[in-house]
């Protein structure tokens, strides 16, 4: 490489070494006496509120565990990394957490793309990865393996639960619309295929797909309304739901056509909307802070409110479950050993605000129940709407069987 000036190269090298040296100061020195957990998630942009909810639920459990002296005498330390919804950044951060910070366990992320990439990495590095928020069924399905665990409900589960409930309703002519990305299509497909299996007479009129982050739904809604379907399955992601609800109300869609949306009854959606909430819309969610009204749930909500000053959304349950799984998993394993931890998690049952939850051994998917309800005003809450006429569908009624899931994996 002739012709390059000597001093420039020297300066360049010094600069680079200096930057690398910086990292020595940024590396966190945790004692050998802790269990270290690395969390990669998106804490910026529209998904941030959901990821923060997961973290809050998790932190609550961690603080409780550490107050009691930790697990096996070791306290839990966790570090978070914000991938800003960029999968290449998320993957790099996961690698940093494992290779540099030497975490014992990985957790994350709301981005399905990152989750799948990190899952692949976790398999190669043989480190457990708890997927707390990604909803793609591929995590424990097609791309499942020994080292990855699914905690959030996935689209296969949600779709089936919704189909189960919808099959009991009289609607026949359906329209499907939603966010044009994998999550949207997956939810819609799962709802539709299962519905058709349960009720063969249903008819699909048409499908409409808009870009993720669409802000103006009126053109799409008018198109749908002019076709006059009996029912609309709206496969929207969390961030879009608030905007869609507003458009649906403003155009009068809500009054004319019954709609179903997964997670629309979550407090994270109905809370911000306040009185503007979409009354009459059907929805599913794995957790509602006001139902079931059990002592366990009440205690959880009260604790959450005391610490964070707000009601928990459904995502906090995932963080909470992750915390409990970690606690009981290491306890049962008897050591901070990754393989023993995984063995311990398979088939493990934890206590939660919604009852006992089992981490299914065959596919590593947490068996959550699903609430199905319709959005209505409530006498108990003045500031926002809630789900009512709630049907709690137990997981065994809608989860895909072990055979079905394992068949999707290429072994």
């Amino acid at each position: 490489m002739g012709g390059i000036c000597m001093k420039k190269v020297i300066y360049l090298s010094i600069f680079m070494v200096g930057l690398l040296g910086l990292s020595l100061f940024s590396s966190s020195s945790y004692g050998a006496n802790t269990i270290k957990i690395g969390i990669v998630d998106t804490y910026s942009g529209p998904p941030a509120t959901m990821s923060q909810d997961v973290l809050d639920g998790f932190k609550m459990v961690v603080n409780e565990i550490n107050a009691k002296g930790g697990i096996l005498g070791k306290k839990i330390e966790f570090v978070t990394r914000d991938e800003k919804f960029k999968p290449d950044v998320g993957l790099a951060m996961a690698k940093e957490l494992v290779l540099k910070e030497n975490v014992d366990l990985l957790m994350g992320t709301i981005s399905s793309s990152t989750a799948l990439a990190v899952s692949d990495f976790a398999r190669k590095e043989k480190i457990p990865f708890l997927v707390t928020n990604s909803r793609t069924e591929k995590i424990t399905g097609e791309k499942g393996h020994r080292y990855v665990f699914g905690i959030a409900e996935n689209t296969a589960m949600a779709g089936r639960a919704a189909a189960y409930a919808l099959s009991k309703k009289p609607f026949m002519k359906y329209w499907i619309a939603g966010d044009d990305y994998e999550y949207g299509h997956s939810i819609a497909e799962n709802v539709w295929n299962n519905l058709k299996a349960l009720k063969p007479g249903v008819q699909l009129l048409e499908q409409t797909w808009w870009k993720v982050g669409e802000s103006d739904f009126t053109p799409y809604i008018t198109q749908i309304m002019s076709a006059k379907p009996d029912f609309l399955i709206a496969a929207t992601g969390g961030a879009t739901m608030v905007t869609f609800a507003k458009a649906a109300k403003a155009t009068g869609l809500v009054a004319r056509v019954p709609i179903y949306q997964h997670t629309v009854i979550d407090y994270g959606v109905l809370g911000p909307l306040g009185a503007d909430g979409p009354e009459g819309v059907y929805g599913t969610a794995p957790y509602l802070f006001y139902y079931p009204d059990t002592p366990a749930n009440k205690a959880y909500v009260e604790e959450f409110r005391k610490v964070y000053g707000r009601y928990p959304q459904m995502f906090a349950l995932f963080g909470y479950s992750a915390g409990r799984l970690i606690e009981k998993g290491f306890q049962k394993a008897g050591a901070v050993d990754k393989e023993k931890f995984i063995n311990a998690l398979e088939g493990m049952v934890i206590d939660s605000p919604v009852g006992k939850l089992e981490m299914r051994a065959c596919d590593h998917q947490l068996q959550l129940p699903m609430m199905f309800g319709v959005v209505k005003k409530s006498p108990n809450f003045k500031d926002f709407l809630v789900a009512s006429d709630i049907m709690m569908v137990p997981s065994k009624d809608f989860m895909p069987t072990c055979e079905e899931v394992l068949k999707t994996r290429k072994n």
Partner: protein
Amino acid sequence: MDLIYTIFSPKLMSQIFVGLSRTVILFIVASGLSLILGVLRIPNIWHGSLYMVGAFMTFTISGAIGGGSLGFWMALFLAPLGVAFVSLIAERSFFQHLYEREHIMLLLLTFAFSLVFGDLVKMVWGMEYKSVPVPRVFQGSVHLFGGLPFPLYNVFLLGIGPIVAVALWLIVNKTKIGKISRAAAVDREMVGAVGINVSWVFAFVFMIGCLLAGLGGALVAPTVNVSLGMDHTLIMEAFLIVIIGGLGNIWGALLGALIFGLAQSLGILIWPQFGIVFPYAAVIVVLLLRPTGLLKSTW
């Protein structure tokens, strides 16, 4: 007669009207961007952040004044002014020192600001979704074209659009400072040579442009999820509109926004899955046919 009826079917007319109301927000934001790019030669990436800040400020102000209709109107008035104020401070402290530098450096600076503000908004307002209620007088919809609903708030937007356009045109073409700005866009040395303080002219134009971004954000707030990430949604579309319209040209921004918005609504009718492609295709066609933009630019 039948042919005319099928061409101008209710569905089509409805889509057109909806497309028009969508363009209003695009136009307002793009016109601000066009002014800044046309007169100051700054590709203002920070514009998106200011749009977002406008929406968030609307949320806070309307919430502080009780959240009802009065709150919204006050916010609509105050939020853009707040944004303009912030932009003025930024311009006087940072931007004005770079006018002699390459424009690509100014682009970088606006990008740096958008990075900083992205995090600032998160720190100040937090992560949860926020919602601004539609003022009572505009709730509900009116039924045009075969009973298809057209939200009253969109009617309001359709009314605001021309008002803003005319107001801008008056400022730029009929006021003294407007004329000076246009002159400075073409030849700033000359304007300085006749004794006018070009620096403050630029500050004024920058402020107006940013105020428009804030106004766009305030107007869109009742219809969308006010959340982080709003700064990225509009900025690319706004730039494209400015380019096809002609830099610094208000009517160009309007025309560009119309093309963009209508292309999208009609595209949805024709090919629902790939409706998003139509506006970009329209931009490409315009750029190939009239590279400097449809209307006269100030460059």
